[in-house]
């Protein structure tokens, strides 16, 4: 992925709701992304608004959300709405965790670029980000 400014590292904001349990996968992904040369910020959020604010403040390229207890569709809908309102639609959104296959079409329609369900390797998500233009 070519960064806007062309020179700095790809910057990724990874987040999970404070009420969503099991962060083993997300923390592993954060480490692997760092090892792959990305700059990673990992936060827990209450409202998804906090993610959007941090993403804009930190000028990240990618927002990665993790879900293990569901609720992803409405969260992603709200996320896209907020990104649009704040003129930040250029940020790429990816999701991971327990994402039922049936929901992937709905997520794509909500401008979610990639969905990485249970069993996906960190490399798949990293390769995906690096292949984006």
């Amino acid at each position: 992925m070519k960064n806007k400014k062309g020179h700095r590292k790809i910057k990724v904001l990874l987040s999970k709701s404070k009420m969503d349990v099991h962060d083993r996968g997300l923390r592993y992904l954060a480490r692997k992304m760092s090892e792959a040369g990305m700059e990673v910020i990992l936060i827990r959020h209450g409202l998804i608004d906090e993610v959007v604010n941090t993403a804009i403040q930190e000028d990240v390229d990618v927002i990665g959300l993790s879900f293990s207890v569901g609720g992803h569709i409405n969260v992603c809908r709200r996320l896209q709405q907020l990104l649009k309102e704040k003129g930040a639609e250029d940020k790429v959104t990816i999701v991971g965790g327990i994402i039922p296959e049936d929901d992937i079409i709905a997520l794509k329609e909500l401008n979610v670029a990639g969905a990485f369900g249970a069993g996906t390797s960190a490399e798949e998500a990293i390769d995906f980000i690096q292949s984006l233009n």
Partner: protein
Amino acid sequence: MFDEITKSKVQEFRRYYDKQYQERYRDRHFEGKTDGGIPIKPFYTPMDLDSLDYDDIGFPGQYPFTRGIYPIMYQSQPWVMQQIHGHGTPEHCRERMDYLASLGLTGYGEIRSYNIVFDQVCKFGYDPDHPEAGDMVGLVGVNMSTLGDYDRLLHGLDLKKTSVVLNQGIHSMVALAFYLTYAEKKGVSKEDIRGNTMNWLYKGWMTDLEMYPPDSAFMIMSNFVRWCSRNIPKWNTTNIVSYFAEEAGGTPVQEAAMAMAIGVAITEECINNGCQPDEFLPRFGFQIALGSDIFEHVAKIRAMRRMWSTINKERFGAKDIHSLQLRCHSQTSAVSLTAQQPLVNIIRSAYQAFGGILAGVNGMTINPYDEALGIPTDESLMLAMRTHQVALYETGVPNVTDPLAGSYYVEWLTDKIYQEAIKYFQKIEDLGGFKECWKSGWLRRELEESAYKWRQRLDTQEKVMVGLNKFQSTKHRKTEIYKVDPKVKDTCVKRIREYRANRGKENERKQALEHLRVACEGVLDNQKMDFMPALIECARAYSTVQEMCDVMKSVFGWGTVY
């Protein structure tokens, strides 16, 4: 432990083996490792038990309880088939409870036991209309926000013949206050109610959740234990859960050591607030992981029983036999399950459950095969129940207590894990004990490192998970995924708003919530008060879960620990 003749026979065999087999296989190595990384040999002999004293193994039902906490185990009381469940409104959850009962769910003798998971929203102390609740209302647990919800969940059940596991995570004390109030309304006295609360406020270190800060958390936990021990003696107050340590990446040695560190930290806190060990230790229980390496997990559980009894006897001077017995609920490993070829999970979980039975666990949840995809369907739940039942009625395994006793390998491994876990436990102690290691993030980092190594082993195929990194299927079979009724959130929000508008008792409630604030401050002030009576008063005055939790959070502090 063995005589000289046996020893010389073993030596003779070793010479034979070294000559014959090493010649045959030359450079090939057959030494391996357990899943948790303990180096192991291809076979074991009596010599491997040479340093072990027979008393370290002992007899079932006798100190140090390596061989189980009773001599007569499943022959009289089968493990409790505690399938965890909960979703939707209380009515949805009740439907599942009745369904499980129809599948043959049992409990302790005549007392049927339900293991009920509350939703994330009430666990974190929010009412369903809180903005942060989002779509999580009733999603992976049942929403229980008011006294009315307890009636919806439990109506018609004989509470004297019902045991409930109030899996309300952080705020299980609030759930208990509601439950006691409900029981009181049904004319059942608090001495007669049975069940468990989680009381696992130490859990934030494993999963990064919002939580009471460590010092407050331990004050709350020990205050709760003190009140329960003196007021509802049959209630199982505390669940020392190391399952989550395993789920977050911990090895069996780490899991065993961390469980002991948690147990010791709570025990010390309870002693500091004026309790005698034998007052409360008999009502502590454990929740232990059953992982994929069967013998390693059997050995871990046997070692943990030995550790718990030794620590409580030698360190705390406990005398009551029940203080020395590690009673454990166990759960098959969810991280071992795959979303790919999910039916294979039935086989995995059955093997893990087999390990649990060999280890002599007292209760068990067998994860339904669709755990990696969502909450269970009726069918996957039924298959999990049937896995229990086939094991109990068809395999013959439960006929004999601790059937692996005397196995050279299992006894060696039990002792090995015991020794390693003691060392690891000592390391935690040297770093200031569990609470300090929680605060510093040391425990969290240790688990993260183990989780990282685990994944590296998968990625390099050093560790095989069938269907995930080997034997992948090209055929795609669609699995039915359970969908929670989409109307749940609206129903719960509508209900709580109506409840608030129509409940009455305004003055009583105001007073009760004020009493709760004063009581919580009294807990912070050297444990001079108990918060449970005030919580019960709040429940009687129709407070909602959030109203009570807001008071507790405002006094004890609340936030993300790391």
